[in-house]
């Protein structure tokens, strides 16, 4: 939280690799993602032969092992893919908007809002299933981000620093109120324990349908603002001179990132680090070009999420570790290694 007041203002120090290299990198990432999608269906806590997996997908029958593939591994793979894409692009937008390479969508109050709303849903309304939480979490994330946006607006428009600070403060207040509610209500506390870990297990694919339209809108917005955001990286004045309207761009970007991060969090719970790490690595690979950063984030985030999930299935056999716990363990060493390479990615 502390580093958020720091700004990075030197986007020009990174050498820009050629467009061809970037395309090849993108193809490699796509290949890796496809491989992980296959692995995610193949690997699990029970040993199921590849032939059964094949049959489960293409010759469905009422077989107990086939159910395991169709009912558990396939949904968690799809959910991981969708949530990963959402969190990655949200993270990229967030870094571009706040101009801070260390800003996580959690910062703008997304996690705090979703968490608090779910605590209220569980503690005060006694809601117990994910389908019920979903809308609370989504609404909580949206409302809190809008609050942060309103608080973070000065007379001259939105300032990234003020917005991040507003996010920190609103987040703190909600976290306090949430823990007050939990500590006096054991049932709510009990249910929140697992939600707080962040997981893509046990979410039926049906849960995705209502959120997908929001994601689609947000992705279109993200593509639309990527050009103007590139211009704004050099400062609002310069961007305005090129015909970009910084305030409008920023609001559109925030709407998109809120929808993505809010929806992702609503489905999977607060998953740390994906939104922080991935855009960072993307920027390190392709340099300060929003469109490329989006494209890479779009692929790298589900790669991180699915790889972490697969890892979480095997390391504690026969039990599993929620993916939200694994992502930080996988992501933090990368972040630390990055910051030790002093110049990388403008750090």
């Amino acid at each position, binding site marked *: 939280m502390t580093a958020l007041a720091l700004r990075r203002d030197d986007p020009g120090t990174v050498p820009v690799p050629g467009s061809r290299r970037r395309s090849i990198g993108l193809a490699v990432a796509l290949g890796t993602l496809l491989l992980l999608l296959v692995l995610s269906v193949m690997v699990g806590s029970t040993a199921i032969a590849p032939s059964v997996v094949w049959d489960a997908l293409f010759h469905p029958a009422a077989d107990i092992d086939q159910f395991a593939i169709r009912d558990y591994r396939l949904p968690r793979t799809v959910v991981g893919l969708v949530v990963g894409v959402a969190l990655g692009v949200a993270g990229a937008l967030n870094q571009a908007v706040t101009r801070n390479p260390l800003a996580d969508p959690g910062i703008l109050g997304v996690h705090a809002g979703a968490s608090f709303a779910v605590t209220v849903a569980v503690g005060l309304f006694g809601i117990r299933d994910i389908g019920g939480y979903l809308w609370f979490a989504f609404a909580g994330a949206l409302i809190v981000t809008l609050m942060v946006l309103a608080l973070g607006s000065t007379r001259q428009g939105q300032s990234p620093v003020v917005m991040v600070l507003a996010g920190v403060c609103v987040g*703190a*207040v909600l976290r*306090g109120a949430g823990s007050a509610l939990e500590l006096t209500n054991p049932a709510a506390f009990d249910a929140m324990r697992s939600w707080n*870990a962040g997981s893509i297990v046990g979410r039926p694919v049906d849960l995705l349908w209502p959120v997908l339209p929001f994601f689609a809108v947000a992705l279109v917005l993200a593509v639309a603002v990527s050009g103007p955001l590139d211009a704004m990286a050099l400062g609002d004045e310069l961007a305005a001179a090129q015909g970009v309207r910084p305030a409008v761009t920023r609001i559109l970007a925030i709407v998109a990132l809120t929808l993505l991060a809010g929806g992702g969090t609503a489905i999977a719970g607060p998953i740390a680090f994906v939104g922080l790490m991935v855009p960072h690595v993307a920027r390190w690979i392709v340099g300060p070009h929003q469109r490329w950063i989006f494209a890479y984030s779009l692929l790298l985030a589900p790669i991180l999420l699915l790889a972490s999930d697969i890892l979480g299935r095997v390391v504690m056999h026969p039990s599993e570790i929620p993916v939200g716990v694994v992502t930080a363990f996988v992501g933090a060493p990368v972040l*630390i290694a990055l910051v030790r390479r002093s110049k990388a990615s403008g750090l």
Partner: protein
Amino acid sequence: MSGARVDFGRRVLVLRRRRIAVRLDRRSAVVCALLTLAAAGTAALALTTGSYHLGTGQVLAALTGGETGLVHDIVVEWRLPRVAAALIFGAALGVSGAVFQSMLRNPLADPGIIGFSQGSYTGALLVILIIDGGYWQLVGGALAGGMATALAVYVLAYRRGVQGFRLIVVGIGVSAVLESLNVWLILQAELEQAMAAAAWGAGSLNGVAWDQVATGGACITVLLLVAGAASRPMRQLELGDDAAAAQGVPVSSTRLGLIVVGVALTATVTAASGPIAFISLLAPQIARRLARTAGITLVPAALTGALLCLVADYIAQHVAPTPLPVGVVTVILGGGYLGRLLFTEARRRL
């Protein structure tokens, strides 16, 4: 005070005792006196309030040894150590925050950034959940966890010296890992133990007794004296590494020393009561605004911290609908206040 005489442009009081000199201008002195009065008033209020109704007379009689039995226990063994703990721990947190903010030249810095709070929580969770340990084991676990984390962050951030920014980033990374670990540990525990651990994790002064206050107080007193002695090089370091080095301050070792003092202060409090959030962050900022000083000053920060902690604990115990851990209140109040503060400041600046 060596070197050229600095003109502060305001009336200055210099108090010397042995080798520690505290420099206070008149406004600071007045502010300190007022803070002390406010703290004394809140302490008196806290001593006379409680769900066990006692008259002012009874409380005073108990304080002067004129009561025995339950009334004596309630006032002298329950309420008084709690008030003392709030004051002492609050002061320690205030100074700890002041040291870190000054050192990293960042108004949002506190020992939490180098992973200390998360680390001590991990240590405490392991003690509570795995060995179901008692109080002193908990203290040991929290200290070991916090110190090990702080050390790990320092070592990982070390690359031909420690630079403030790298320290912060590594701290965020390591904290995130520990936070996930903590969430997972909580998930593995039985409900009763998980609740107890979460209450500790929120920061609570419940059941604080004299032996804890005495042990904590002794450590804190020593550390506060060290912090007082280090306040001059600390101020020089605020001017920048090069400027400080030019004045003969050994930059790296001073910074390491300040980290150790700051962390040790927070560690002592955390060990005794769990991580009480936001006081170390806020106290120096509030103090700076009250005293209208340019930099971070230790004495007003200590007094502000003490007052904040006591008021928050009073609210947590007597104003909230059900008694809450004090840390829950400091987070809510702290977040709100910090929001207002940074927000108005940022608006003015932009």
